[in-house]
């Protein structure tokens, strides 16, 4: 199977299962969803190392969001 197709399908399945599992346990914090999306995205991208037309905008966005969430949690702990 085409590696690019496999990458997109794996990403879709992983992130969908993540959303489903978190919904089933009634998770209401958006940051938990986003954090797990970021982990799942980077794990799948690292496994498949797909070719991209341009810079990895999705990765950059998820990384910034992840850093923001971690920073907020740290501030909560410190303050």
């Amino acid at each position, binding site marked *: 199977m085409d590696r690019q197709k496999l990458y*997109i399908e794996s990403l879709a399945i992983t992130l969908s299962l993540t959303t489903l599992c978190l919904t089933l346990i009634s998770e209401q914090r958006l940051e938990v969803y*986003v954090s797990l999306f970021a982990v799942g995205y980077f794990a799948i991208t690292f496994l498949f190392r797909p070719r991209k037309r341009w810079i990895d905008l999705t990765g950059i*966005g998820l990384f910034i969001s992840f850093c923001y969430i971690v920073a907020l949690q740290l501030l909560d702990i410190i303050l």
Partner: protein
Amino acid sequence: MKSSENLSGYAVLGILLITVGILFTVFSYLILHSTPFMALGILCLILGLTNALVPETLIPTNTVRAMIEAACINVEALLEEYNAEEKAIYLPPSNDGVYCLVPLQKTPVNEIVEQLTDAPLKLVSKVGGTRSLIIYPLGSEGVRLSHLTEDVSVDDALNEVLVRFLEYVESIKFVQSGNVLLVEMKGSKIETRFPRYRKILGSIPTSVAGCVFAQILKKPVSFIDEQSSGKEVVARFEALSIG
């Protein structure tokens, strides 16, 4: 991303998912006040961006490598058939791409430099009384397809063709000292295992650099030599002045 490319299936699906994702996220936040649905919207956005950034077709690396080496075999065979020993002179494009003149006799370049650009475009040509081979090197099409602009500098052209477009090397440094053009290429990703090709035209990245010089400087450029160690190549050329 070039705007001139037609949108692939992935790109169309990607744009659709991005639109749906944004609308669904905003709708879930403002109207539904539901975190799982917002997460679903973000999921669509992530998948949409991923789809949009994935190229439609990907030619396998081994196929590309086989094609490049196959192209070199033909040139190597020609050089061997005619027992070529002299270094190539890269000539600026006339109608098609950059082409090379390989003298089949030992002749000082300054004796034939005035007639170089007038050489008839046949496989074996006579230039100033010297029998020479006319061949189109591997880099000729690469330079043509990279659509270099008229006012681009040599440095930018080398980076555009060798690093960004063809991705043959990871970085390039260019220095000009009088007529001598020195190019240092690091992280070469392509091997040239044909000895005569290497000796006469230079390795594949060097040959592409020669094509870039001829294209941008618009004058004949003679290949002098190259030194390579591991993935690093340092090549020297000489820009020839006519008239």
